[in-house]
């Protein structure tokens, strides 16, 4: 399916929850959805017979600045041979989005990484621990407003 057909399908299924469909002026077209609906939409993307997005390539956290974080889902369908970029924007003060790790188990580690680096809370995540940084690390370092602490566990940074 082409991007227009996929986004049309999503709009027919979820109406206003699809906030934006962008094809003009971008290299990769994308759909932007409401964060509260991410789980429902992801389930439909995987299970609708004509969509069949069985492969989650990548899940990235992004800090857009202006108090706005985001999660980006890059999906691919091995069965149908099409791809989709799905984005959702989250307020930096309360960045919550439902987990998709029950839909695509690969999301488990990607979501832990996004929590670790950006502090995005994935609701109902089965294992919401940090993944790359130590458990006691202060803050989420890929946020644009992150300041490297002067001391970490009594050690001067940079050493």
């Amino acid at each position, binding site marked *: 399916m082409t991007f227009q057909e996929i986004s049309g399908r999503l709009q027919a299924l979820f109406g206003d929850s699809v906030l934006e469909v962008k094809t003009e*002026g*971008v*290299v*990769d077209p994308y759909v932007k959805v409401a964060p509260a609906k991410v789980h429902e939409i992801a389930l439909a993307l995987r299970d609708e017979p004509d969509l069949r997005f*069985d*492969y*989650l*390539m*990548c899940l*990235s*956290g*992004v*800090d857009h600045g202006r108090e706005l974080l985001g999660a*980006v889902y*890059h999906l*691919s369908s*091995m069965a149908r*041979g099409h791809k989709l*970029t799905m984005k959702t924007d989250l307020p930096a003060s309360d960045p919550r989005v439902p987990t998709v790790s029950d839909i*695509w*188990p*690969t999301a*488990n*580690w990607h979501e832990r990484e996004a929590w670790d*680096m950006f502090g995005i809370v994935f609701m109902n995540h089965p294992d919401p621990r*940090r*993944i*790359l*940084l*130590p458990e006691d690390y202060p803050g989420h*370092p*890929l946020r644009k407003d992150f300041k490297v602490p002067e001391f970490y566990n009594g050690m001067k940074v940079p050493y």
Partner: protein
Amino acid sequence: MNGTAAPTIRTSTGRAIRTEEMVLNMGPQHPSTHGVLRLELVVDGEIIVDVIPHIGYLHRCFEKHCEAMTNYQQVIPYCDRMDYIASMNMDWAYALTAEKMLGIRVPERVEYIRVIMGELQRIASHLIALGTYGLDVGAFTPFLFMFRDREMILDLFEMTCGARLLYNYIWIGGVSHDLPPEFVPRAREFCRYFRPNIKEFNDLLTYNEIFIKRTANVGILPADVAISYACSGPMLRGSGVKWDLRKNDPYSIYDRFDWDVPVGKGEYGTVGDCWDRYMVRIREMEQSLNIIEQALDRIPEGDVMSAVPKRIRPAAGDVYVRSESPRGEIGFYIVSDGTGSPYRVKARSPAFVNLSVVPEISRGYMIADLVAIVGSVDIVLGEVDR
């Protein structure tokens, strides 16, 4: 196995022994974890009940560093250091992403050079994977044979760009040096020399009875689990899924060559076991040789620097591009804010994703089998932790 009660164990006088699960730490400095990976094992005697991988010991803030760069080109040496035994493929993946952002078409000669380098690197990387895999399960000799042959590939790289491990060779829009005149004959000679050696590896290791006993029917990864965990590369193909980005999502000029995608068939056990993953790598080396030989025959003349941009300033936006590294799908997600340095770079590294399936496929096996399973995933911690 998991979920079932352990049978009561009795002493010779008939007294019941109290048994309990134990937590055992493997790594981060364990020789079979290929770097600094810590596995927390919950074991019932010798049987693995659960595995909890702990990663991050080699985290070098790749993504944070990218944001601090003053231009896009400066990221490439960091890409080298991600998967440090397949640096060419890492550079290439990043360059592909940046080129898509900028809308650059690279010259024909550059495409051919990249394919040749990428496939030579794939062979070199598989040689390390297979050699150290032999070491993991107790075979020392194949490791030496494979490293001997890998040296010849590194000689070819050194001849071209001066480096043997971290090349900084594939640039955005081109490559840093043209091939020296003696490269093509030397590469042909390598192909002629290397092809019979694959049979030698098979005689030494692949069809060795002990090796088969250690790897067949161990760590079985069914195809549907592999897809839901987004496994890629030999990990996915070992499970019988004919999926290779060079064929299924073609990039560069891979559609011009005649080659085949090997998949696991369960010849000595079940489809998707450790032996299948191992064998896919052996067969991929043959296919890489096919590609290299065809590319060497057809490589055109040309200028390798003509498409290298003087000033890199992509329009605001984002792009995700994936390509096939020796370990699987390497993807870069780059966000540009319209300035000269990247706003956000996310690397989707294949080993990170492939490692996440290890707990799923290790439960119920012995601790010694876990060594075989982790080895067959072929992780590089530099790329897992970034």
